[in-house]
């Protein structure tokens, strides 16, 4: 029995407290009245083969060894004469509290282990969620949006842009804002009025769009053109300011 005890390897313990608990149980010791000298000797015997452990866990075992030795020393010291009302603190008190706390969770771990075993006997269906989802057509991300909502959004953004303070971009393209102004004015001269959308046919180059925008802004600023819209969502008409006087 005694020999068996020494065959247990340090690696089998979850930590120094686990080892200490093991010694207490082996010796059938009352946890509230640990014979520190005896337990400390046994503990130190156990951690003799510490060279086999990695430094991290070894140091953890050594910290507790030091604690045990400190308690042992304290208990060997002659007790000071105490006053009547003074209750002497047991040097083991803190260690006992830690051990009890640890013991609770060791037991809780045992209970979880039991539940784990039970649950391993139960099987859920293995679902490949991705595969299941792929069975369905991809969702329509614009389910509640019609093409006219899109158009309305576009119109709003165009109008919003009108209110933005003009930022003059230096265009790399051949066309300048000045040239664009001339083109818009020429169109207005011949037609008297223009639909806003006519200025942006599909396929218009990006630079051209921006330059046209800026040209329009410039014309508004110069008070040479105006915009007219009969109602919400109706088309926007651009006219020359001279026309307006009629």
């Amino acid at each position, binding site marked *: 029995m005694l020999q068996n005890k020494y065959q247990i390897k340090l690696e089998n313990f979850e930590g120094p407290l686990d080892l200490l608990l093991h010694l207490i149980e082996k010796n059938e010791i009352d946890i509230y009245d640990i014979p520190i000298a005896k337990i400390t000797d046994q503990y130190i015997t156990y951690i003799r083969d510490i060279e086999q452990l990695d430094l991290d866990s070894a140091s953890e075992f050594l910290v507790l060894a030091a604690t045990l030795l400190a308690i042992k020393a304290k208990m060997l010291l002659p007790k000071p004469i105490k006053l009547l009302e003074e209750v002497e603190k047991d040097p083991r008190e803190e260690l006992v509290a830690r051990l009890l706390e640890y013991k609770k969770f060791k037991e809780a771990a045992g209970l979880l282990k039991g539940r784990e075993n039970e649950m391993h006997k139960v099987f859920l269906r293995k679902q490949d969620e991705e595969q299941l989802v792929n069975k369905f057509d991809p969702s329509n991300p614009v389910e509640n949006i019609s093409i*006219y909502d899109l158009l309305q959004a*576009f119109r709003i953004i165009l109008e919003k842009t009108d209110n933005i303070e003009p930022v003059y971009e230096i265009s790399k393209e051949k066309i300048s804002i000045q040239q664009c102004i001339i083109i818009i004015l020429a169109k207005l001269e011949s037609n008297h009025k223009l639909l806003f959308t006519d200025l942006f046919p599909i396929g*218009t180059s990006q630079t051209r769009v921006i330059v046209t925008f800026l040209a329009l802004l410039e014309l508004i600023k110069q008070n040479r053109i105006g915009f007219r819209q009969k109602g919400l969502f109706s088309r926007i008409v651009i006219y020359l300011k001279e026309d307006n006087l009629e």
Partner: protein
Amino acid sequence: MLFLEETKAIIESMLFVSPDPLSIEEIANIINIDAKEICFAIEEIQKEYKKEYHGFHLIDVAGGFVFATKVQYEQYIEKLLKPQINTLSHAALETLAIIAYKQPITRSEIELIRGVKVDKIVNTLVEKNLIEEIGRKEGPGRPIIYATTKDFLKYFGLNDLSQLPSMENFKNQD
């Protein structure tokens, strides 16, 4: 010796966890009873799950048996499993509109029109497969150019981009 009730339960538990159809043979290999008995138990299970109050049934497919949901409940399963699609935010809709009408377009061009950063929104639209990168613009920084996708047309019920309504159409809609 197993009773029919137990045989049924054992087979059911195996069918429940098996991702692939189970053949009579495979079942027989495990529970060591006569194939005829297994056939009978399976018939009983099939009968049970044909009942109206069951949402799935036992179908025979590929030389084996497998539980599958009943077709009529597909809509609920779809709702359950499909990731929730949030409809587009207002900002996303605006950005999509600009791209639709002004494509091909770079991110900074969109930002110029919207007056705000659009990186995140553009990424979202790419993820939702509404727009895609179609190349890079020549010039400094060679920015990515975006255009709407085929799915964009599909979602809006368009054959091609020329069917995008112009302002004129819009008025008629009112």
